[in-house]
């Protein structure tokens, strides 16, 4: 449905999007993930024909964004970061305006307007002035205008930014219910959102594609890269933590051992390494064979958040010499862009 090839956008001083290629199949929800300033919005703006790419191209619903922008625009619904509302208009009036701009006429326009008013739960503010609506309503009216012409592709730029938790859930459910009929790309820097709504994740950082994978694969990868927590106790009331650390370090597959807590007779270690089943078995054996007790052994749970940080930080480390743009902020920080 969407096919992006080597899409690049250069500004006077920096490269916002750097040779990005990916593909989205029909009916999928794809999460577009990256820190603030990673190039998410720029990519989306190019896909919606708002910006022209410096090089590369993309096809949306079979039409090229450069050769056939008019046909592309007919087939996409776009919700920019701030919903494009005219504050002096009333909700229904506004939706009718957008519908007619998208080419709907007469009874069809009226039918679709009523439908999206219901679908996005904004029918109760139908006659209210948009400038006076709350943030949650504004966002939903924004979604309503994006789907009014029943587009094949929906492009949503941070659809849940600035909403309260209840509104976030409602918006997510709404987006999920739209999948199937529509192919959806949504951008976010909030990870749980991706875990909950998307099947596919595209991670970009500093304009470069870092990873593209399914959510479950990424979580799997996260577990593989995670660390193991080992709690060891001495048998006769005392324990030489340094000695334990040395013997844990000798286990094959271990890359780093860190004593996180040491006490009189027990110590907790965080062991990094190739965390598969044999590593944990080897660690257990090493502890018991040296004459200590093994109190606890578990994988430290790793969230998608950590994979994300790992992926983006690795990328930064590899490219620190070029692109002197601002450093990626912490992903967990939900600061506004």
């Amino acid at each position, binding site marked *: 449905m969407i096919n992006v090839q080597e899409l690049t956008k250069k500004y006077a001083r920096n490269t916002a999007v750097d040779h990005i290629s990916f593909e989205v199949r029909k009916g999928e929800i794809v999460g577009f993930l990256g820190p603030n300033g990673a190039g998410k919005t720029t990519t989306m703006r190019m896909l919606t*024909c708002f910006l022209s790419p410096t090089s590369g191209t993309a096809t949306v619903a079979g039409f090229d964004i450069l050769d056939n922008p008019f046909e592309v625009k007919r087939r996409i619904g776009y919700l920019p970061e701030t919903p494009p509302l005219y504050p002096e*208009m009333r909700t229904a009036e506004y939706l009718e305006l957008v519908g007619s701009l998208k080419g709907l006429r007469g009874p069809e326009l009226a039918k679709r307007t009523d439908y999206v008013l219901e679908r996005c739960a904004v029918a109760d503010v139908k006659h209210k002035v948009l400038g006076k609506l709350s943030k949650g309503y504004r966002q939903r009216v924004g979604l309503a205008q994006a789907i009014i012409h029943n587009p094949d592709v929906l492009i949503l730029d941070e659809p849940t930014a600035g909403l309260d938790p209840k509104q976030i859930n409602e918006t997510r459910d709404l987006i999920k219910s739209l999948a199937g009929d529509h192919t959806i790309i949504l951008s976010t820097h909030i990870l749980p959102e991706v875990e909950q709504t998307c099947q596919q994740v595209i991670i970009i950082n500093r304009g470069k594609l870092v990873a593209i994978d399914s959510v479950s694969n990424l979580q799997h990868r996260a577990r593989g890269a995670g660390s193991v927590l080992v709690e060891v106790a001495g048998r006769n009331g005392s324990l030489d933590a340094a000695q334990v650390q040395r013997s844990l370090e000798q286990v094959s597959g271990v890359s780093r051992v860190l004593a996180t807590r040491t006490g009189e007779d027990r110590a907790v270690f965080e062991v990094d390494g190739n965390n598969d089943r044999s590593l944990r078995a080897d660690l257990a054996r090493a502890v018991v064979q040296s004459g200590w007790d093994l109190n606890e052994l578990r994988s430290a749970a790793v969230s998608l958040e950590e994979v994300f940080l790992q992926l983006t930080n690795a990328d930064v480390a590899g490219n620190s010499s070029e692109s002197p743009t601002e450093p990626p902020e912490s992903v967990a920080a939900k600061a506004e862009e």
Partner: protein
Amino acid sequence: MRNVWIICKKELHSYFVSPIACLLFTFFALLFGYFFWTGVYGFVYLGMESQMRGESFPMSVNEFLLRNLTGNLSVIGLFFVPLITMRLFAEEKRSGTIELLATSPVHDAEIIVGKWLAALLLYAGMLLLTALNYVWLFKYGNPDWKPLAIAYLGLLLQAGALLAIGTFISTLTRNQIIAAAATFGVCLLLWIMAWVGEFEYTTWARVTSYLSVLSHFETFAKGVIYTKDVVFYVSLIFLGLFLTSRSLESLRWRA
């Protein structure tokens, strides 16, 4: 064509929902009412004077009253144009609604012409208000309506040209005040450029005064349509709208 009308309707709607149209209409009507009153007063006074001097030939309402009035209108038009055009694109850029327009299946030209047409219609609406005054003039006097109609055609053409320039300036910024100030500056320049032709007769002075918007209005005010003046205004309209479309397109490269 249909999209032009959709955009135009939307613009007119926001002019009339916000207080801006109301304010413009009020002050325009007040100003014109004042011009009209002083004009008629002066005309009657002059008429009585010439009667007392025993001059017998009748004074023409068109020549002594209407020509001055329409001349005044063309000057105050300069002050109203920036207020009409300042929001056209600057506001869309500031609020982000430009993204809605630019990602809808609508051509740039349709957006631009729609917006310009809405501005022109608003101005035409203001001119229509002056009819309230003329009703009395036609009731108690007998002016010739044809030169008046031609003068109003000239006013519309002049406003069309200035509005096109204002529309262009509005695409350059996201700040309405800046758009208004710059448009006002350009309008003033286009007015006073004519003055240089009054005492200088070199080529550059003639070119400069030719480019002044107001000097082309004088023939309309006399009730004469010169093709060269119509061509001047129409080409200025095209230039303004063309620059607007270029500026809008450049947004796709730098926005």
